[in-house]
């Protein structure tokens, strides 16, 4: 199994190198510091949201409402900072993340305890949370001049400690935050009992229940984590873009998040994959995204490319799973 995962991560690294190579060969400007910076700025939002979705998909679920969670949490954070600047960026961020957790808990509660299929529950809340985003904002956007400078600086400045290190000093806070979230997710999924329960549940739900794993609670928490990731990404969105528009923020983002997770080696059949692969696939998508714009390929190609790559990843997963089953069958 270890080998299988390593293979996915290795192929992601190879894909990243290939795409970077082709892009640099076609357009040397691709390797400029400014471009690398824009790739690095593109990844954190996706990576933070993808970490939560990873837990959900490992349990064989799906959360298509994550774009709307990002939207509602990001919008609420921006409105709070506009109307109550005394909250401070930290305070508003905590509220945004907390709101994400609550929205995730609503999904998780319906799925784990009321046995609503994940796609139905989250397709419903996809609409509901987006509608709420409109209601809380009155349909109006928050502009960057209405937000505190401190929040913007998350995406502009790096830690003061590193200000003398060349290149590294230009890596902004959001990247470090995302890195921290990824490391914590990896540790959480690998070294805590909750993480192991998530894998056990995804690998074989019946066996997990028989082994006394609190299946409902583990499922519920996976959606809460997904909500936290979405909420956090919403706060980062406000920092990154400044302008927060109720219909724009996070709209359709669920596709990118789910694509990142599945391409990162989390099988839709559950039980496999993890943070390192997903982190690499977020980086891959960031590289692809920036490469497309640098190579002047119209962004109208983006959605088709996501769809195609997602489809290929699912088919590849099934092949792996089938051959793994076959090997296991022969061994028994």
């Amino acid at each position, binding site marked *: 199994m270890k080998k299988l995962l390593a293979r996915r991560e290795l192929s992601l690294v190879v894909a990243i190198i290939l795409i970077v190579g082709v892009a640099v060969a076609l357009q040397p400007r691709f390797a400029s510091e400014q471009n690398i910076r824009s790739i690095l700025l593109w990844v954190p939002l996706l990576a933070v949201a993808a970490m939560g979705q990873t837990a959900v998909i490992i349990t064989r679920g799906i959360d298509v409402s994550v774009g709307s969670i990002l939207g509602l949490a990001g919008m609420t954070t921006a409105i709070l900072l506009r109307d109550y600047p005394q909250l401070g960026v930290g305070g508003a961020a905590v509220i945004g993340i907390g709101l994400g957790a609550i929205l995730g808990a609503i999904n998780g509660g319906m799925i784990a305890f009321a046995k609503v*299929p994940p796609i*139905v529950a989250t397709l419903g809340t996809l609409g509901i949370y987006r509608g709420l985003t409109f209601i809380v904002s009155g349909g109006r956007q928050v502009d960057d001049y209405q937000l505190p400078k401190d929040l913007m600086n998350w995406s502009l400045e790096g830690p003061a400690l590193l200000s003398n290190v060349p290149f590294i000093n230009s890596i902004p806070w959001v990247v470090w935050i995302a890195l921290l979230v990824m490391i914590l997710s990896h540790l959480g999924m690998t070294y805590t009992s909750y993480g192991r329960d998530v894998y056990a549940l995804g690998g074989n739900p019946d066996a997990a229940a028989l082994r006394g794993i609190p299946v409902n609670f583990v499922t519920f928490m996976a959606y809460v984590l997904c909500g936290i990731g979405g909420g956090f990404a919403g706060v980062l969105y406000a920092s990154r873009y400044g302008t927060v528009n109720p219909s724009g923020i996070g709209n359709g983002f669920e596709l990118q998040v789910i694509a990142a997770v599945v391409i990162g080696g989390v099988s839709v059949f559950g039980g496999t994959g993890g943070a390192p692969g997903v982190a690499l696939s977020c980086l891959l998508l960031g590289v692809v995204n920036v490469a497309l714009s640098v190579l002047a390929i119209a962004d109208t190609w983006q959605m088709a490319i996501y769809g195609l790559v997602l489809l290929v990843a699912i088919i590849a997963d099934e092949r792996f799973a089938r051959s793994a089953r076959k090997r296991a069958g022969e061994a028994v």
Partner: protein
Amino acid sequence: MISRIRSRFGPEIVAVVLLLLAFGFSAFREPRFLDAEYLFDRSTLYMEAGILALSMTFVIIAGHIDLSVTSILALVGAICTTLVSKYGLPPVAMIIVAPVVGGALGALNGLLVSKGKLPSLVVTLATMALFRGVAQILLGDHSLPMPKELVGIHKIQLPGTYFHVPMVLLAILAVIAAGVLHRTVWGRWVTALGTNAEAARHAGIPTGKILIQLFTLSGVAAGIGSMLMLSRLGVARFDHARGLELDVITAVVLGGASIFGGRGTIVGTITALGLVGVVQTGMGVAGVKAEVQVAVIGLLLIVSVLFSNFTARKRGR
């Protein structure tokens, strides 16, 4: 007798009662709801969703889902108008080409689900992006016109009545669908597949073939829906019917089809579609924003599944 009807058609009765309630409330708030002409005029918006909902009923009864139908609708529109305006396809031929292209796209879903042994949810989530993405590549942010002679089908009425062509078409298709679902062997196979796929296979039902046929059917329906939508709107755009899958799935599930497969009726789906239409029209008249309307439909979807789970548990299933 009454208890037999109640146990067989419980969810459908709920849908009918809700429809009457919503209609009564809307008519009370907005007298125009009692004007037949207004009603039939508003209902043209829902005929495309209705046709998608018919095939979705089969797919959901079989225990699957097709999220890509609305993207197929958009892509078929993009392909057909491109063929006409750039490659000289005679406009009338669109009527044949649209369902064929739709069917081919649907068959791709079906092959992946059946031969690839992949979950339909993930396959159609991916093709939802892929198909709409290809439509976006073809059209970009522009729109292509529907040929003049095919525009305005929703304005043609049966002589002497308020019934317009799309409504008649939906009515005919609904009757055929109900006949196929409830009166043919194939309909029973679909239900058996959704009740217990494993048992259905052991019973010798060609489950793989049925899956391909189901998703092809779904694509054909999207092709027909595409022609209706393009005729109504006059142009093809890549973002046509975006998000309409929520209305379609809500109509099917609210109409009593079990999201876990194995049960559902066409009458229920059509009734629930009427409910979705009345609720949306009512909100539109009351000046509720489109995004908030979507939220209410989302709520309707969740509540209907919660409700049916609750009653199923009460029956001790």
